[in-house]
């Protein structure tokens, strides 16, 4: 068997699996998105052109969910980036116990979203939750964390931040430890201040790596479903209903499969376009 055929033999199982599990469903969804197909109602799928796409793009309900998702993504990712970098910076300056601290900080990230959701649902319970109990002992009033419009979205951001700050921290820590020590040594010879060293050495060198972490987190946050499902069910009303949660409802409550497929395709397109713009910025940064 030639090298070429050997390579084909090794690659083809994985390639076929990828085609069957990933590429084919995507193309299938793309096809369905141009039809009126419903998974439960059966019957043949009728071609409806761009009707589903037009309905989604002009829907006030979708616009509202897009805004909710945007607030969530920007809020959560910003908070996680600031906190993650700050923690990483503090840990990187320690010589003792760095490994233990890093491991401890990583624990939330290891937990499943469902466990985190249920755990925080109890923590944030207005009547019996630990958070309100602590606020009460400080003489502060009870907060309806999950049942008021503003606090519900803030709660989601806080919980997501609690779980995913370690991810940013981990990547930032990798960047921080990779900064060549001689740069700091040269700066200290020049009697550069701490702030100057941070601003001119640390941040510029870690920044590209941090931006990649932000990219990953933003894509993940854009797809937020589990926490919403468990913590708020999209409530109060639909005020924490994200795009992912809404597309789930379209797909599985109404079983409007064609519409849901178009919705999913649009979400993928948004991620691809934004990622491309972001990557261009990253490349530009690298060139500069």
């Amino acid at each position, binding site marked *: 068997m030639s090298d070429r055929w050997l390579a084909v033999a090794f690659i083809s199982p994985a390639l076929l699996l990828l085609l069957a599990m990933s590429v084919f469903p995507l193309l299938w969804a793309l096809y369905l998105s141009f039809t009126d197909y419903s998974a439960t109602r*059966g019957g043949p799928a009728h071609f409806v052109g761009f009707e589903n796409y037009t309905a989604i793009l002009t829907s006030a309900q979708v616009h509202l969910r897009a805004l909710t998702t945007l607030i969530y993504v920007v809020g959560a990712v910003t908070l996680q980036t600031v906190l993650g970098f700050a923690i990483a910076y503090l840990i990187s300056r320690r010589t003792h116990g760095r490994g233990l601290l890093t491991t401890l900080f990583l624990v939330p990230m290891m937990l499943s979203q469902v466990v985190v959701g249920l755990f925080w649902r109890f923590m944030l319970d207005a009547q019996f939750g630990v958070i309100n109990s602590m606020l009460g002992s400080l003489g502060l009033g009870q907060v*309806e964390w999950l049942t008021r419009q503003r606090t519900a979205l803030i709660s989601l951001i806080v919980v997501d931040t609690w779980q995913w700050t370690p991810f940013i921290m981990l990547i930032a820590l990798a960047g921080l430890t990779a900064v060549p020590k001689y740069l700091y040594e040269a700066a200290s010879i020049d009697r550069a201040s701490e702030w100057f060293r941070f601003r001119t050495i640390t941040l510029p060198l870690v920044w590209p790596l941090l931006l990649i972490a932000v990219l990953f987190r933003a894509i993940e946050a854009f797809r937020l479903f589990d926490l919403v499902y468990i913590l*708020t069910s999209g*409530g109060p009303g639909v005020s924490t209903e994200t795009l992912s949660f809404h597309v789930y409802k379209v797909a599985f409550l109404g079983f409007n499969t064609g519409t849901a497929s178009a919705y999913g395709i649009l979400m993928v397109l948004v991620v691809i376009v934004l990622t491309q713009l972001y990557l261009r910025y990253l490349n530009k940064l690298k060139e500069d």
Partner: protein
Amino acid sequence: MRLATAAMLVATTMAACGQDDGAKASAPKAPATIPELTKDPLTLSFIWFDWPPAHALEAFANAEYTKERSNVTIKVNTVPNANWHDAMFTQFAAHKTDFDIPILDSQHIGEAVTNGNILDLTDFVKKNIDVKAYNPYLLAAYGQYPQAETGKRDENASMYGLPLLGDTWTMIYRKDLIGDKPPQTWDEMISVAEKCQADNPGVSGLAFHQANGSDAAAVTYNTVNGVYGGNLWDSKTRKIEGVINDTAGQEAMDVLVNKMKPLTAKGSGNWFIDEVNAAVAQGKACIAFNWIAASGGLLDPKQSTLGTTREQILDKLGFATLPSQKTNLVPLGGMGMHVSAYSPAANQAEALNFMKWFEQADIQKKWAAAGGVPSRTDALESPEFLNAGPFNQVYADSVSRMRDMWNVPEYARLVDIENTNVNAALNGAKTPKDALDDIAKEQQGVLDSGSRKGGGGL
């Protein structure tokens, strides 16, 4: 690029070939006579949501049914309440189910029937079930489709299920706080709760379902709507707009949001069955509403702070039918048993045999004694049922007062619209009027687009 084109071609071809099998949109018929049953080991699987009656059913069926069918094991698969509809209908969509007997909510029947997901049991029922033994309204609610406009059974209509568990709301009240006599009218109930809350710091006047998921907040609004003389829709003209948000509907929403909600515990805007039970068991509510089938745990001293014995708890807790106001309507709960159209033939035969066995008078009485709520009149009036729990008399007294929701294929979307909007009103995210008008408008949109297969899902 060539790869993508090829994949696209495959997808299109498969789409063209693969969707014809779903073209038929009527339920397949079950045989009138039960086919020969297998002697091989067989597991008969149910699907239900996770709550005490589901566990009671599995224990009861394995203890009793296996006396006759020793090769059969009963398995009741449970999912969280919020996943119940999806868990069943995603499997129906795949035309392959890991359950033989789906326990459908009464309002799910329309969707399952029009999609051909469950067997038409009309001939089977005629030959094997004594339909006269039931309250006709219950038989219709749990099995008939289309549902009769009056809610009464139409003897010529098709049957797709048989009752498994009857249910309605009971009012749970603290005898030690408000006295032995339960309030008789809704207005009286509100003022009693108000006084009780004022007299007992730390105890809220009311506890009821307000959550965003399942049908929690929707049933609460429907109940108040019914009591204050409102209607959910005009089933003849399929009109919701102008009906649910008429004067009676607005009064009901006003009562719910402005009079009842202020009497609930802070942060109770996401409470459902378990949270209401917990509030009662921990002595945190003067008056509460909950489904009867979920109320058994309230008498368990291990779960209650109201007493160390069942008797001590019953000294403090009373159970009564819902107060009336302009009408005396109560919500219909409970579910029926159905047979999956996608089960193997041997399992379908066993499912039919189980249903025939389960609906017998003496088995229904045993089911009642085991914690079930029967639908046969003789079992409902039996001492086995009435003595099994302090709330069972409430159910027996409520049967003639029940009102169901819309039994239509669009149910899942209609209830979601109502749930999210009532939840929004209860939690201050919308004004009561806006919430009600939005319900009417959005639900009407769903009904009007019902004939279209795509779209309308936003």
